[in-house]
């Protein structure tokens, strides 16, 4: 495997640089049937979804604490294997976005999804929940079209601090 096919994202991330643009530029140079391997401190699902739209299928392998190896193949299929499932979480299992239960609520990560899937996934999750559930949304843009629909089903949105380039929202039912 030549050096060009291996790209370690960790130095960039350590410097606080978003590696998305650099990776996309490298990926553009990969021809049909070509491969690319990324090393990252976490499983970069949003990045993998962006690359999937460029025709890359990817698998993620955890090699140790803080070390993930992402193997990408430009096969035109754009499969993102090993997406976190919504098992152990309430709501539909076919949201198309990973949902994880954490101490502060259900986290749904819709970054990298094409419109209108972020909005649809969030609303489908909210509509399936009962009681005083809280949903934390990880988004890559301000979802302006989501708010009228949220208001209609009695939910509100508050901004939370997020990582650079992320819009993070706390959604709650019945708060005014």
């Amino acid at each position, binding site marked *: 495997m030549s050096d060009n096919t291996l790209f370690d994202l960790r130095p960039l991330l350590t410097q606080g640089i978003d590696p998305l643009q650099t990776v996309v530029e490298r990926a553009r140079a990969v021809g049909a049937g070509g491969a690319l391997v990324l090393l990252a401190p976490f499983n970069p699902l949003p990045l993998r979804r962006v690359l999937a*739209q*460029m025709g890359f299928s990817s698998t993620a392998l955890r090699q140790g604490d803080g070390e993930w190896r992402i193997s990408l193949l430009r096969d035109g299929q754009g499969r993102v294997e090993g997406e976190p499932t919504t098992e152990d979480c309430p709501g*539909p299992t*076919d*949201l*198309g976005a990973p949902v994880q239960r954490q101490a502060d609520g259900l986290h749904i990560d819709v970054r990298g999804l*094409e*419109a*209108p*899937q972020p*909005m*649809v996934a969030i*609303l*489908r999750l909210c*509509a*399936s929940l009962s009681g005083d559930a809280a949903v934390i949304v990880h988004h890559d*843009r*301000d979802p*302006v*079209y989501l*708010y*009228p*629909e*949220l*208001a*209609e089903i009695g939910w*509100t*949105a*508050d*901004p939370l601090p997020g990582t650079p380039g992320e819009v993070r929202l706390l959604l709650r039912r019945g*708060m*005014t």
Partner: protein
Amino acid sequence: MFRDFLAGATGRLLPASVPFRFFGAAVIFHLLGWATLVFAADDLPGFLGGPGLVLAALHMMTLGVAAMTAMGAAFQLLPVATKRPLRSVGACKLAFWLFLPGLLLLLWGMAEDHTSAMDAGGSLAVSGLLLFALLVADNLRQVKDMRVVTEHVWVALASLVLLVVLGLVLVADFSLGFLEDHQGVALAHAVIAAYGFMGMMALGFSYILVPMFTLAPQPDGRLGRRSAWLAAAALLLSLAGLVHGIAPLLWLAGLAGLGAVGLHLWTMARIMKGRMKKALGDSFRLIRLAWVMLPLSLIVGLAAASGLAVDRSGPLFGFLLVFGWLLSMLTGVLQRILPFLGSMVSVRPGIKPVLMSKLIAPGALRAHMVCHFAALALVATGIVGAQGLVVRLGAVVGLAGALAFAGFAANLWYKLSRHMNPRPQPAENT
């Protein structure tokens, strides 16, 4: 809370006045279109083209309702979907102010058979449409994702350029008479306009709007993209077939069109099957009607192309295409988009957003839907039976439906204005 957070978000939205001016104009042209058809009823059975009230009524629906709605929806939806702002809000407004007076002049020229008015109005309207096309193309130029939507819109924009060229040729031919087959070119213009420009816009935006309205998982985009390519092939074949008068090409175009529509409807059926919202209301009754009318218009068009009772199948084809497919689809979509936009723009610091459900007038929308279904049935029957009186009755019912629809829009505007500008509470003890 919403009001605190959205105070910033509203600044990044296209000003509400931009899409609302297009949608408001569409609502008014909807009224004018049916009203004109009331007066043109006797001429509709057997209509095969040429200036007059029928031509004006058709263009009120295609340019006045369909193009206005497509422009408003594209300006509103694309920047959010593509994550890229439009290059200039002023240019969006200019497109409207070129298109509206141009269209009014063009319609008057068509109704009165006034060639100079058609020339001038057509040129102005075309300027507005081309400015719209440039803005949308500029926005889409660097978009790599959402290919199912963008490929439909690219075909729509290419169709727009074609229909503009054909339209200008037709208008020039009214005074110069250089075309050997004016009717063939007029039909090509109509097909490229209704199936190509407005139809491809409607089909493409359906891949965003239908999952959004129904809360359904995203369908496989590959089928939708194949549908777009097949539709593009059908449009090119129909253009060649109509301009050169080659019937086998028209048959091929019809079959390719039916294939494209089949793939689109199959994808829509998959979306509907997987939807979370079960009760979709009257808007989706209209959208479902449009999904029936689209392939039906193609089948009737094929019958007309094969020479089967052309004096009846020809006008019926045009009616099903414009009033059946486009008008049903667009009024169904407008029923959902107008309250949605109203709620979205109602967010102001210190004011709670108005709920979409508070902006809907269910009685008016039900009346519109019932009248629309009845009007389609009556006018189609009148065309087939060559009965001007039945067509007129259908047009009157359609006009009643359009009035109900205008009532819904006026009610929405009134409630939104009241919400945005609440009356000051009288001070106590005064």
